[in-house]
């Protein structure tokens, strides 16, 4: 450690204490030690209590959150996320949010609230996966991690915005969830109604890349009003090829009507949920949902 002289002979200055009993402590010193011990217990309890209170809500979590594309299964995702927010930083529409204390499912863990801001793949390349340093978001799952039946996509999804490119697909093998028409009674398409105006009102802050307007720059949804005779916004704005369409469906009593129908290529990005103009979204993403035929 030091450029010292090795010839220095160590000289003992204190005799080894051996079996000599230490003198008994004074009352005040004993009390001081006891208080110190109690404070130590207090800090231990406080810190561990806080740590576990941040953990417990996750144990009892009922509601599934929509995770960014390429996320591992929930338990593995929570274990491997290092909470750095690099996925947040690369997202061009800032769809990814980090959880806060009250969200109760891991402070700093990313999720997407599709109704507020969906993932519209305007990065063209699932850049959040590219940014993740720990493999919590990943293109290819390691072999030993489980892949639930129905989460795999039959084929790599084709992104309409780059359909004419040499490589039109997204490097995504599993879905984030599946879109479901959860409130058909509200759906304008089913009612046979049209829609005119800003899809989510003037105050809505969500953005989207309308590739027919600008291939490279997402714009606010509020700046892109619609005027359609029959509402098909979810189909019109779905960024993927063949994930949703308006079909004629037959009710059990034989009557026919129009309805949005979700198809297998749906990855659960949430654009349909964001753009749906009804007060409460008629169509929603069920996070982590598998494809059922």
């Amino acid at each position: 450690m030091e450029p010292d002289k090795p010839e220095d002979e160590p000289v003992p200055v204190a005799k080894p204490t051996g079996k000599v009993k230490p003198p008994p402590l004074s009352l005040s010193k004993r009390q001081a030690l006891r208080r110190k011990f109690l404070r130590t217990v207090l800090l231990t309890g406080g810190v561990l209590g806080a740590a576990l209170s941040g953990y417990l809500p996750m144990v009892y979590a009922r509601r599934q959150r929509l995770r960014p594309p390429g996320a591992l299964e929930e338990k593995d995702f929570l274990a491997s996320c290092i909470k750095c927010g690099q996925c947040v930083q690369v997202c061009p529409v800032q769809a990814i949010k980090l959880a806060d204390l009250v969200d109760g499912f891991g402070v700093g863990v990313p999720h997407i609230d599709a109704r507020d801001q969906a993932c519209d793949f305007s990065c063209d390349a699932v850049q959040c996966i590219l940014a993740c340093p720990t493999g919590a978001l990943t293109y290819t799952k390691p072999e030993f991690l489980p892949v639930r039946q129905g989460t795999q996509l039959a084929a790599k999804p084709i992104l309409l915005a780059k359909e004419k490119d040499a490589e039109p697909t997204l490097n995504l093998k599993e879905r984030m969830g599946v879109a479901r028409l959860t409130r058909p009674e509200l759906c304008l398409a089913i009612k046979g109604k049209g829609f005119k105006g800003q899809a989510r009102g003037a105050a809505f802050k969500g953005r989207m890349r309308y590739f027919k307007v600008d291939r490279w720059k997402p714009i606010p949804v509020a700046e892109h009003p619609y005027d359609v005779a029959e509402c098909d916004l979810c189909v019109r704005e779905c960024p993927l090829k063949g994930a949703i369409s308006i079909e004629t469906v037959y009710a059990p009593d034989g009557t026919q009507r129009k309805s949005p129908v979700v198809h297998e290529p749906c990855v659960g990005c949430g654009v349909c949920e964001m753009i749906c103009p009804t007060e409460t979204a008629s169509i929603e993403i069920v996070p982590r949902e598998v494809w059922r035929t």
Partner: protein
Amino acid sequence: MNTILKRRFFDQILAMFGREPKKPVQISPPAQEIHLYKRTTNKEKLLAAAAHAEAHMSTSHKWRNRRWAVLIAANLLFVVSFYFDIQILEGALTGSRFVGFHLIDLNSALQVMLAHKHIITNLVIGTATVFVFWLLFGGRSFCSWVCPYHLLAEWAEKVHLFLVRKKLVIDQPIDRRLRTVFWVVFALLAIATGYTVYEAISPTGIVSRALIYGPGLALLWVLAMLVFEVFFVRRAWCRYACPIGLTYGVVGIFSPVRIKYTLEGCFHEGNCRKVCLVPHVLDTVIKGRAVHTEVPIGPDCTRCGLCVDVCPTGSLTFDVKGLSKLL
């Protein structure tokens, strides 16, 4: 390294894990000679000389200012990188990319590895880079030169010390072994729950993310800890709880960057111990305790330089092992 300093080297590692420093068993002859001189010198003369040195000392904040500048700059770089999208330092303190190169906080990486039980290449690259960096630059220097909570706690400490001077509060110390216990408990919790439980309360992560991505309610926990530090226990988190500090401390065991104590000119006023975050590493400055004429300060030292600033005799200095030999 002779046997005396080797013994001290290992004693200091134990002190980092929470053992209270003891009187030395052996003292080298040159150091003994100095101790003897100091004992036999006329006490009044010695006190007069000490008072003289202190009176003529210019109160310097050189190292503190440098350190604060580095700490603020590092954290600001994260903030501006995201805010202006200039992509120099992306991410947060738990994991980031410096112009594309992965950097991962050692303690967070450890938590993730224990919880997930699977390691990918990027994680290894980032962790190894940071490991080598802090191995070179002094382990716990991460605490005082980078950690944003350290700066907040330093300001809270000033309030605490003010209240102590006003006799409104007293510092109520805690058992230092607690930090080692926490380290083990959080490691076990990560393994058992499969979740990085510590990250939920890590003030370093919370403050870093709050700076970059905007404040959240998690800051309430940080605030609670700061209040606890102001009114009850001086620097409670950094001294007695933070597992990150211990992780970086272990890295710093073999670090060449450290504070060096020179026995000869020291008057043993103990100013350094009063400002120190980890006074147990400065037990060597107590009169009669130094085992050698020059003693390197142990791995729990955060290399913050407050003692260097406050020392009136220049007995404590920054030192790079081997560098003096090279120059």
